[in-house]
């Protein structure tokens, strides 16, 4: 084992491999900053080039590239309220209000540090935890996965909306929207009204851009603001303050990293869940939950730690089990196969030094990417003080290009506009936009797991022990504010003389 570690370190630190890793990190950081262009959109562009490369160089290239996309994608979420990648949407909830308060530098400092450290720690946990996580993966069948998705939506509904009822309505609407289009199992067209543009359903990126990015622009302009930042942007000291924030909230960071890592390991749950679950637990365990959504730095630290940590987890599942945990990991799987390495249990035996090289490569890429982002943060934070006269056309143009590049369909411009208005209405009347997004993202999986569960276990599949326990937790979570209000009112009534 020690020999394998030695070989891995020696391989990674060969000058050519280091050079490739640095170049990949730079490109990955740039890709992450561009709104809506994630690894899923850009990794396929790289795959044709690695075909003839030596195995180590090819895999180090894609690992270095992908590892830092989530580090820099948080920046657009924080500065412009546009998710650089879909999972970084959770960072917007508190990152953007921090920018509005003139704390953009601090938010970036916290996000990058949390992200960087969150990407390094799981690498060292990865191999140690294999024996522990395998039984967990096996224990989660279709019924558990289906109810876990509902639990995730309820969690967000209860924590990010004006009320649990409104939050749950938003989450359910997200699920309903995900059902639009051709149903692959039966061939039935659902809710598409015969419109060809809706046959394949609504695309995620235009929906997310409209719901968060455009609606926020509409809101600020409607309010008569002239720039995103209401106060002057702080300098490097602000960025360093963010770095210190991560140390101050180190237990939150640690918890979020572990949660993100474990969720990343579970195949098929999706990267978006990790960031939202961590945001939810940060709010629930905070001494000041009322500050969340208004610019709490904990709301930035938690999702950013999870965002990078889940990648190490997903990578471990892909390499150790040969099961890609996400669409991006499916591309990784393709890349492994392209260069002649078959992921799976055999890889951890036959190609152990290579597996270790890649895991250490993720750690090194995160460190390099994090340092670059921290150095560039003060300059980047200035974007928030640009006048809306310039920012509005700039954001709109980049967003629309992003939508087109990601979907290759000009019809999706209308989707962005429609969800811009939907997002604005939801914001104005206290309906949880994150719950809608999560419902939409996980709707397809929820339906698949639910239908399989019904076929295998019957319509009462949710009465199995683990799903039932999850449903009880969900009911308690959603009814808690109402129960609390009822108890307080009863106490008040009986304590009066």
């Amino acid at each position, binding site marked *: 084992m020690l020999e394998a570690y030695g070989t891995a370190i020696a391989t990674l630190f060969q000058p050519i491999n280091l050079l490739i890793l640095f170049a990949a990190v730079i490109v990955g950081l740039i890709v992450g900053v561009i709104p809506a262009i994630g690894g899923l959109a850009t990794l396929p562009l790289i795959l044709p080039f690695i075909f003839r490369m030596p195995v180590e160089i090819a895999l180090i290239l894609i690992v270095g590239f992908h590892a830092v996309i989530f580090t820099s994608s948080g920046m657009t979420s924080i500065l412009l309220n546009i998710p650089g990648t879909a999972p970084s949407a959770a960072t917007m909830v508190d990152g953007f209000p921090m920018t509005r308060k003139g704390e953009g530098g601090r938010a970036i400092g916290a996000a990058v540090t949390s992200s960087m450290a969150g990407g390094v720690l799981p690498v060292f946990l990865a191999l140690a935890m294999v024996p522990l996580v395998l039984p967990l993966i096996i224990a989660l069948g279709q019924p558990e996965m289906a109810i876990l998705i509902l639990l995730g939506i309820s969690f967000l509904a209860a924590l990010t909306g004006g009320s649990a009822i409104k939050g749950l309505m938003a989450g359910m609407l997200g699920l309903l929207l995900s059902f639009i289009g051709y149903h692959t199992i039966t061939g*039935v067209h659902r809710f598409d009204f015969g419109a060809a543009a809706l046959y394949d359903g609504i695309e995620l990126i235009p929906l997310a851009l409209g719901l968060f990015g455009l609606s926020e622009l509409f809101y600020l302009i409607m309010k008569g603001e002239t720039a995103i930042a209401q106060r002057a942007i702080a300098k490097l000291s602000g960025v360093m303050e963010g770095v210190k924030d991560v140390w101050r909230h180190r237990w939150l960071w640690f918890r979020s990293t572990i949660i993100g890592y474990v969720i990343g390991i579970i195949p098929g749950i999706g990267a978006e869940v990790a960031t939202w679950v961590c945001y939810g637990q940060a709010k629930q365990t905070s001494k000041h939950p009322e500050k969340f959504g208004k610019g709490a730095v904990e709301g930035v630290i938690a999702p950013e730690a999870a965002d990078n940590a889940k990648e190490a987890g997903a990578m471990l599942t892909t390499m150790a089990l040969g099961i890609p945990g996400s669409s991006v990991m499916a591309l990784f799987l393709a890349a492994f196969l392209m260069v002649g390495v078959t992921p799976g249990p055999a890889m951890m035996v036959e190609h152990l030094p290579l597996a270790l090289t890649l895991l250490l490569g993720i750690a090194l890429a995160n460190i390099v990417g994090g340092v670059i982002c921290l150095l560039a943060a003060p300059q980047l934070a200035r974007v928030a003080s640009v006048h809306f*006269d310039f920012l509005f056309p700039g954001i709109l143009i980049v967003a629309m290009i992003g939508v087109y590049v990601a979907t290759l369909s000009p019809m999706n411009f209308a989707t962005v506009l429609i969800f811009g208005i939907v997002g604005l209405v939801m914001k104005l009347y206290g309906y949880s936009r994150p719950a809608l997004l999560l419902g939409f993202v996980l709707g397809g999986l929820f339906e698949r797991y*639910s239908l399989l569960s019904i076929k295998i276990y019957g319509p009462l599949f949710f009465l199995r022990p683990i799903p039932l326990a999850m449903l009880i937790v969900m009911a308690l979570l959603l009814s808690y504010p109402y129960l609390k209000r009822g108890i307080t009112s009863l106490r008040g009534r009986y304590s009066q003389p």
Partner: protein
Amino acid sequence: MKLKGSFWVALLFLALGLFGTIQSLTFGYWESMVLPLGISIIISILAAVEVARELKRRGDKGEAAAEKKQEGGIKEKFDARRLGVVFGWAAGFCLAIYLLGFYISIPVFAFAYLKWRKRSWLVAVVFAIALLAFSYLVFAIGLKVPLYKGLIFGAR
């Protein structure tokens, strides 16, 4: 009793839920029907509760107090006319891309918007060119993604 936005939004959810319920019943197979139907029914029930709560709030406390009691959301006043104008610009830009493509729409939109905002000719021209150059260099050259050329110019 004048009903305000929060009531109408809840009513819209109720209408969506009921519409989803009725539509789901037409899907034929149970596999395609069961979840949309279940979710639509849940939305309808929750929305009905919310509508009832809104009505009760307004009935009990009067309009002003009901606005204050709105759960979550924003309680400030806004300039809806300004929103209409900005939405018009965004919609116009989207339509322009659809018809003329990115390479024409980007500079025209950026220039026209800045002139409408009473910026100088020089600033408007430089900004329009800069945005076009950025889009071309990053996407067409850097990422090798050909941008949409519009319906009139033969699409992509």
